[in-house]
C-alpha cells in the first residue's frame, strides 16, 4: 500500500478534521449511552438509594436502609449435613467465625423499635480459606415485591407527603392495586407484631441461591435461621421505651450465648428461584446445616459490623446467585449505600450533611 509521505493538501484537511471530531464525539456519546445519560428512566443504584433518603431523611454515616441496629459476634458450627449439596468450606464439619448485625428495616437510625414488625439479621462468615459468605435475612416469610422496579415504585409510594408527614394513602392504594404480587406479604403483615426480642425471631434469606456440590451439580436453595430461644421477655417492651431490642439482646448475652439453626430448603422442579414474593411448598426438604452461636454484642457505631457491606452476592465457592432479579439490585444498591456512608465517615468534601428531616429525628 502506497501512502503519501507529505502533509495533506488544504482541501481535504477540513474533511479530516471533521472526521476526527466525529470519531471523538462518537466516543463520548458511546460512554454516555452505556452510563445511562441518554436513558433518564433507567433505574440506577443511585436512584434507589436517593429514594430511601427522600423517605426518611439523610443520616450521615448510617446505612441507607436497616439503619438502626447492633453488631454481634459469634460462630457457626457446621455439622456437615449440607456438604453433599455445597462444596463451600463453611459447610464442612467445623467452626467458622461470624460477624453479624441485627437491625430494623427503614432508613431512620432513631426509629422506635416498635415502629415496624420486622427485624433483620445479617451475617458474614469468614472461611479459613479467606473466602466469605455474606447474607442479609428478614423476619418475614416473603418479600413484598419481585423486582427492583417494583421495589422502587413501592418506595416512591411510601414517600411521606410534605403536608401530613405521612405516606399518601391514595398512592399506597394505587401501588398495591398495581402490584397484586404484594398480597402474600400484606397477608403476613396483617398479623405480624413487633417482637420484644431479636433473639426469638426466625430470619429468612428470601432470595433463592444455588448450592454447587463437589461434582459441580447445582441445587436451588433458600435458607433461614430458627431460634432456640422462644420466650420473649414480655416486659422488655415497656411502654415508652423505644430502644428495648438492643438492651434485651445485651441482657440475654450476659447470661448465655444465643443459638439458631441454619436450615437450608431444597427446591424441587418448578419451584420459582426468581420470585421472592412466593414461598415454596411446605413439604420441601430442609436440611439442618448447623448451629449459629451469637456470643457478644457491641453498638453499631464502634462495632465490627459497622464497615461491613452485607452484599448478598459476596459468596464463597460452592454458593452461587440465582436468577432472582432482586439480588444484583441489592448488590448494586448496597455498594452505593456503603460508598455514601464510608465517604461520610471519611468526611470527604461534598458528602451529605444531616438534613432538616434527620435533625428532627435525632433530637
Amino acid at each position, binding site marked *: *500500500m*502506497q*501512502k*503519501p*509521505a*507529505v*502533509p*495533506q493538501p488544504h482541501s481535504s*484537511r477540513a474533511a*479530516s*478534521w471533521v*472526521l*476526527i471530531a466525529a*470519531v*471523538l464525539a462518537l*466516543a*463520548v456519546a*458511546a*460512554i454516555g449511552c*452505556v*452510563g*445511562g445519560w441518554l436513558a433518564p428512566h*433507567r*433505574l*440506577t*443504584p*443511585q436512584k*434507589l438509594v436517593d429514594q430511601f433518603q427522600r423517605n426518611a431523611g439523610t443520616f450521615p454515616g448510617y446505612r441507607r436502609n436497616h439503619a438502626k441496629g447492633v453488631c454481634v459476634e459469634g460462630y457457626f458450627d457446621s455439622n456437615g449435613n449440607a456438604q453433599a449439596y455445597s462444596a463451600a468450606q463453611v459447610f464442612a464439619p467445623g467452626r467458622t467465625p461470624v460477624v453479624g448485625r441485627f437491625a430494623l428495616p427503614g432508613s431512620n437510625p432513631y426509629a422506635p423499635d416498635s415502629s415496624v414488625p420486622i427485624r433483620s439479621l445479617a451475617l458474614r462468615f469468614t472461611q479459613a*480459606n*479467606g*473466602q*466469605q459468605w455474606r447474607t442479609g435475612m428478614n423476619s418475614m416469610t416473603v418479600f413484598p415485591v419481585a423486582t*427492583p422496579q417494583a421495589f422502587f415504585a413501592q418506595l416512591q409510594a411510601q414517600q411521606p407527603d410534605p403536608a401530613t408527614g405521612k405516606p399518601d394513602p391514595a398512592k399506597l392504594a394505587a401501588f398495591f392495586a398495581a402490584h397484586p404480587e404484594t398480597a402474600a406479604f400484606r397477608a403476613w403483615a396483617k398479623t405480624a407484631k413487633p417482637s420484644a426480642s431479636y433473639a426469638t425471631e426466625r430470619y429468612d434469606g428470601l432470595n433463592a441461591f444455588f448450592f454447587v456440590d463437589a461434582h459441580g451439580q447445582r441445587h436451588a436453595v433458600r435458607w433461614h435461621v430458627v431460634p432456640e430461644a422462644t420466650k420473649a421477655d414480655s416486659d422488655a417492651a415497656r411502654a415508652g421505651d423505644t430502644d428495648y431490642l438492643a438492651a434485651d439482646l445485651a441482657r440475654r448475652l450476659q447470661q448465655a450465648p444465643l443459638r439458631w439453626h441454619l436450615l437450608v430448603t431444597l427446591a424441587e422442579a418448578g419451584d420459582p428461584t426468581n420470585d421472592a414474593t412466593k414461598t415454596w411448598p411446605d413439604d420441601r426438604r430442609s436440611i439442618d446445616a448447623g448451629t449459629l452461636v451469637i456470643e457478644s454484642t457491641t453498638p453499631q457505631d464502634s462495632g465490627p459490623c*459497622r*464497615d*461491613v*457491606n452485607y*452484599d448478598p*452476592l*459476596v459468596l464463597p*465457592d460452592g454458593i*452461587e*446467585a440465582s*436468577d432472582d*432479579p432482586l*439480588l*444484583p*439490585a441489592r*448488590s*448494586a*444498591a448496597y*455498594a452505593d449505600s*456503603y*460508598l455514601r*456512608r*464510608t*465517604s461520610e*465517615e*471519611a468526611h*470527604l468534601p461534598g458528602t451529605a450533611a444531616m438534613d432538616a428531616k434527620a435533625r428532627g429525628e435525632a433530637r
Partner: protein
Amino acid sequence: MNTNTTTFALPARVLHWLMAVLIVAMLFIGVGMVSSVSERHAWLLAIHKPLGIAILVLAVVRLAVRWRNPPPPLPADLPALQKLAAHASHWLLYALMLAMPLIGWAMLSAGGYPVMLGDSLRLPAIFPASPVAFAVLRHLHGWLAALLYLTFLAHMGAALYHGLIRRDGVLSSMDGRRAATAILPETVDAARETGDAEPGDPA
C-alpha cells in the same frame, strides 16, 4: 541502539492494540455496571475484576518490552510542545493502566471484601481494612477512570491527526504498516531516523 527505529517492535505493537481494546472495554464495563441494577451489574463486575488484574500484568510485561525495545523517536520536525504533550500523555497512560487495577484491588481490600477473581480464585488483601481508605480509593477509582477516558480521547485524536493530517508516520509506527513500506525513501522516515530517542524516553 535498535536496528529499526521507525516502528514499534512487534510485541510492543501487539500489546498496544490488545491493551487498547481491553482498557477501553474496561472503562465501558465499569461505567455500565455502576449505573445498572440488573443482572448486568453482577456479570459485568465478574468480568471487571479478573480483566483489570490481567491489564495490570500486561502493563508490567509491556513496560519490560519497552525497556528491551526502545520506541522509535517522534518526527524531528514535530513542534516541541507537541512532543512534550505526546511524551507526557504516554506516561500518563502508563501510570493509569498500572494505577487503575492497583486502586481497584486496594479499595476492595480496604472495604474488607474478599478480592475474588472467579468462583474460587482469591487475591490477598493489599491494604488494611479501613472505611476512610475505601471511600478515598473508591472515589479515586472513578475519577482516574474519567481521566483515563479523557486521555484516551486526546491520544486517539492525536493519533488520527498524525495519520490523517500530518501523515508523518507516527500512526503507522504503531499500526504496523510502516514495516511493509519502510524501504520506500520517505522524507519523514529520514526525519524520524535522525531522531534522538533515549532508551528510557517515552516517545
